[in-house]
């Protein structure tokens, strides 16, 4: 029996007359890599904000890591990890300072922080970088560090919002190997991306169009359903029909 980590039922968010997220229902399981796709403006960010306790839904239900997004948003924040391309680490703090800072924020004890940071430095082979400012390390390293920091407190689920922009393909693939390792530890990975080849690395994918989830399944199922040879084609067939864009 699969353990459900995220479950939504008719989850909806309205801003005035505008229905940003329109009654979405889906489940994500423990240790799964779940790709959350959609064109700009489809409602992905709004949905993710609700699931991470940052935005109160208008109606519907959502349980994340066993907690209710309506009544326990603060608890949810402590039980998830979050990483985005835009904001993740403090550029003017060193590598080790960032690790300590986030460890503190997530409520780890000094002893735990010490142990965790040693493990992490070892695993990332960052021994020579710990005293460098994050500003001065390459983007690919920042991304790896940001993911490591986001799961420092061993959350049930980690949300990755376009984590891999701008790095070379070899570095991007190393990052995905880290995602596999994260999922192997039993942490559910909920990820958005504009790279549709990356969608193929996910166990299952949902595609949002105009606030709805118009497709959900394994990459293989979706390609069969839409008679497509790649996820790019599936996405194009679905998103081309979108009525709204991000204006």
């Amino acid at each position, binding site marked *: 029996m699969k353990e459900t980590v995220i479950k939504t039922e008719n989850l909806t968010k309205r801003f005035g007359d505008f229905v940003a997220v329109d009654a979405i229902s889906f489940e994500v399981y423990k240790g799964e890599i779940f790709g959350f796709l959609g064109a700009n403006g489809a409602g992905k960010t709004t949905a993710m904000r609700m699931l991470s306790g940052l935005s109160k839904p208008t109606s519907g239900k959502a349980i994340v890591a066993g907690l209710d997004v309506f009544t326990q948003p603060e608890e949810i924040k402590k039980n998830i990890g979050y990483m985005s391309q835009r904001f993740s680490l403090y550029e003017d703090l060193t590598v080790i300072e960032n690790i300590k800072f986030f460890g503190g924020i997530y409520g780890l004890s000094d002893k735990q922080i010490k142990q965790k940071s040693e493990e992490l430095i070892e695993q990332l082979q960052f021994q020579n970088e710990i005293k460098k400012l994050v500003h001065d390390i390459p983007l690919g390293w920042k991304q790896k560090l940001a993911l490591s920091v986001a799961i420092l407190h061993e959350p049930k689920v980690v949300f990755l919002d376009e984590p891999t922009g*701008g790095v070379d393909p070899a570095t991007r693939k190393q990052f995905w190997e880290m995602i596999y390792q994260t999922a192997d530890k039993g942490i559910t990975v909920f990820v958005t991306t504009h790279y549709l080849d990356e969608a193929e690395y996910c166990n299952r994918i949902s595609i949002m169009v105009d606030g709805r989830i118009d497709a959900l399944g394994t990459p293989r199922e979706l390609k069969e359903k839409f008679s497509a040879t790649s996820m790019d084609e599936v996405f194009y067939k679905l998103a081309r029909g979108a009525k709204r864009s991000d204006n």
Partner: protein
Amino acid sequence: MPDITLDHISKTYNKNTLLALDDISFEVNKGELFGLIGPDGAGKTSLFRILTTLLLPDKGFATVNGFDVVKNYKSIRGIIGYMPGKFSLYQDLTVEENLKFFATVFKTTVEKNYDLIRDIYLQIEPFKKRRAGQLSGGMKQKLALCCALIHKPEVLFLDEPTTGVDAVSRREFWEMLKSLQKENITILVSTAYMDEATLCDRIGLIQSGKMLSVDTPENVLKAYPENLFAIKSKNVHKLLTDLRNFENTLQCYASGEYLHLSFKTENGNSQNEVVVFLKEKGHDEIEMKMCKPSIEDCFIRLLAS
């Protein structure tokens, strides 16, 4: 005829400690759509800034439309369009004010060159009274392109125009570039998306300030030195770890549903050997086939050599 030439261009920052461009030479022909493909930090923006006369090279020569980027910088500024990677229009001017402003700066009018931008402008016209700062990413990108084109430039420089844009908008953007090419405008465009490479006439693959390869996408693909295999099994992550430890593995990495694998030395039996090895490691449902490399595979291969 070359419209852009670079001859041994180098650029360093931080008192010569950071090498941004390392002896770069290539040419872009008149009317060509040339793609500069590489990750963040590869040197793409430095190269654009040198060609658009905003930055002086340390060494080497470069020309745009026959003009030297250092000596004749003023002549170049009048005949190029430049869309920087960072949105650089006036945020507190409206869509139509921005367009009119750029037309005026280049001593022309919106009406005079309207034909060139019409197809793009029609998509943002419903928002012409909106301030540029209030536009969505896709709309900003279209407005920036209109402003870069409004004086009918000879050469168009587009620095990562599609970064952060979804797949549908990216495809539309490339269709716009294809139609601009018909106007005989030379286009130098950079991108970090490898899949966009095949839409260019020729590409330059750039990493850490060095050009790894300059050729047509077809020739870059043909130059891939080994046979490439796609392989999968029930547990793809374990498969990756195991294949990395296989002694004949040259490169192995995830690529969509499959892993891509190349061998150090290949004989008729290499495929069987790897399957036997994987069965010993307990893998089920092993599927292996030869596959065609993509630009991404070529890039990863060039990084390793």
